[in-house]
């Protein structure tokens, strides 16, 4: 009830204020409501005071009416959006919108170019760089771009250090030793935990990708580290000894380089190469490609898959040079290794699947490409694996037991290869079984 009364009083006060009676005089009649009424009425008085002009301009009304009736009789009279008058009117707003849009894009671009890891615009920057790499078809330009971006990553890490921010970072560069014996990647000090370095054997001059945490003391604690392999397709322009020129890029070919097919000048080839400290690419493999394979490799969506499958050779490694201590090597963990983590193997021609400890005897050619891909046992294969071969056991279809057991052995061999028959482990080697049978 009191609310209703208050509402009625408020309305009455409003009427009086509209008539121009001063507020104090209006409120005098309702002392009991003054504290509630005063702020409301003061504000209402201000809102009423802005209503100054009550006269309606006759000219404007007449003009509006004639336009209105004209539009009624001639509905198309209303200027369409493409009429000069409308265009002229909207040109300014369109220009403003365009300027704002352009400015927004440019500002975002500039802002993202300066973004650091952990910033909200940082993913945009990375995506922009990846896009540039994707649309760059020329291998020379792509390598240059990649180097630029790698340098940018390192600059970012240094910027993070100078701002005392510690966040997850990923960068790349040549591995070097500092004067105190620590490791540097592109002059950034890194810390390798035992867990990280256990399967890693790197040496100075390796080009590596590093991911880790930037710490306040100006170092990066490494989560993982791997060799950088450049992969591209090109046409062989010249071959002079170990120096090859492929689509304008100089490639060094050495004894370790796998040559698949018979690459000759003029061939289309796919190259997987490691960057060395003296800015030279050392080929790991050179594969002759057909035009279709080349096209297929250029399909952007397929590129990652191609890289994943071809990045395996990067785990080959020659141990002949001085290498980083690999603390955990005496305890290999078969199967737990990451695809890109590196085992120290003695044989440069080992295939990537065989990640074994350094003491392993060279396996020779037993796991060459066809042997891996086809599960059908081959006589040569058996020769290598079984010290006392019995050539009749394997291919004979009549000896069912033997022929069914052979693929099993094969299966075991390829999947459990990290527990090799030649290793000094106490476990019986899978190949000993058939041996004893014979």
């Amino acid at each position, binding site marked *: 009830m009191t609310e209703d009364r208050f509402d009625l009083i408020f309305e009455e006060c409003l009427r009086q204020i509209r008539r121009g009676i001063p507020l104090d005089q209006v409120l005098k009649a309702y002392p009991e409501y003054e504290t509630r009424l005063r702020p409301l009425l003061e504000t209402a008085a201000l*809102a009423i005071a802005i209503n*100054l002009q009550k006269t309606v301009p006759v000219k404007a009304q007449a003009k509006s009416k004639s336009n*209105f009736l004209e539009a009624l009789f001639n509905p198309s009279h209303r200027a369409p959006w493409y009429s000069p008058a409308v265009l002229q009117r909207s040109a300014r707003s369109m220009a403003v919108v365009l300027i704002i849009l352009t400015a927004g894009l440019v500002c975002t671009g500039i802002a993202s170019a300066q973004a650091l890891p952990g910033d909200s615009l940082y993913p945009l920057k990375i995506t922009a760089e990846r896009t540039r790499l994707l649309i760059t078809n020329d291998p020379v330009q792509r390598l240059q771009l990649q180097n630029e971006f790698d340098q940018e990553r390192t600059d970012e890490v240094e910027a993070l250090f100078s701002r005392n921010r510690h966040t997850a970072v990923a960068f790349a560069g040549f591995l070097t030793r500092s004067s105190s014996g620590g490791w540097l990647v592109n002059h950034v000090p890194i810390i390798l935990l035992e867990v990280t370095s256990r399967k890693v054997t790197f040496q100075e001059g390796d080009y590596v990708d590093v991911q880790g945490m930037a710490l306040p003391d100006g170092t990066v604690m490494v989560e993982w580290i791997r060799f950088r392999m450049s992969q591209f397709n090109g046409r062989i322009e010249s071959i002079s000894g170990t120096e090859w020129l492929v689509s304008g890029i100089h490639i060094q070919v050495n004894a370790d380089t796998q040559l698949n097919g018979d690459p000759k000048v003029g061939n289309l080839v796919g190259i997987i190469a490691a960057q060395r400290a003296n800015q030279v690419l050392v080929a790991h493999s050179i594969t002759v490609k057909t035009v279709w394979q080349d096209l297929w490799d250029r399909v952007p969506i397929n590129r990652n898959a191609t890289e994943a499958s071809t990045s395996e050779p990067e785990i080959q490694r020659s141990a002949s040079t001085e290498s980083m201590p690999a603390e955990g090597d005496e305890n290999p963990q078969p199967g737990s290794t990451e695809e890109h983590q590196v085992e120290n193997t003695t044989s440069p021609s080992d295939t990537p699947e065989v990640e074994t400890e350094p003491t392993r005897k060279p396996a020779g050619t037993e796991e060459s490409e066809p042997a891996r891909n086809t599960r059908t046992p081959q006589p040569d294969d058996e020769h290598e694996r079984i010290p006392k071969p019995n050539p009749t056991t394997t291919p004979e279809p009549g000896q069912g037991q033997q022929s069914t057991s052979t693929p099993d052995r094969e299966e075991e061999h390829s999947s459990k290869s990290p527990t090799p028959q030649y290793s000094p482990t106490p476990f019986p080697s899978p190949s000993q079984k058939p041996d004893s049978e014979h």
Partner: protein
Amino acid sequence: MKGEVHIRSVVAEIMNSETILARARQLDPLILAGIHDQYYPVVYRYVRYRLDDAQACEDIAAEVFLRLLDALHHHRGPNQNLQGWLLGTASHLVNDHFRSRYLRKMNSLEDQELISSASTEQSVDQAWQNREVREAIFRLTEDQQHVLALRFSEDRSLEETARLMGKTIGAVKTLQFRALASLRRILEGRKNDRRSL
């Protein structure tokens, strides 16, 4: 005064009647001309209450009636409450205008206009204060702005306002108190900002 209000509400009732609206939908020129004559001043005063720019007021008031024609051509438009529809459309257009004005950031230019127009009718101080109030009103919700403009651009009663807005009287009362309270807060906030400067 009272008699005038009474006549207006009676006319409004006649104008809102189904037959008038039905004939308007058939685009009867006589009826439509009558609607324009009847409501242009109402719409103009509503817009003028919320905007201090006379030219923009004329443009918006004219646009409201062109929108009505558009709506009738497309078989849309008001079902019962013609005046409410017109004032609601005016409210949207005023808001659009405010937004575009803020986008253009033409404030410095308007200061000039303000001072030149103020010298004739009112003191500069008064003009400043009115502008502050208008800008504060612009910060209210659309409904709150609409209710203040309906109530104060003309001496409309609660009942008339409620009918135009298609709301109950209770809802309009609440809306109006909230609008006044918010407006006061905004104005005080601006005053404090100025003092702290």
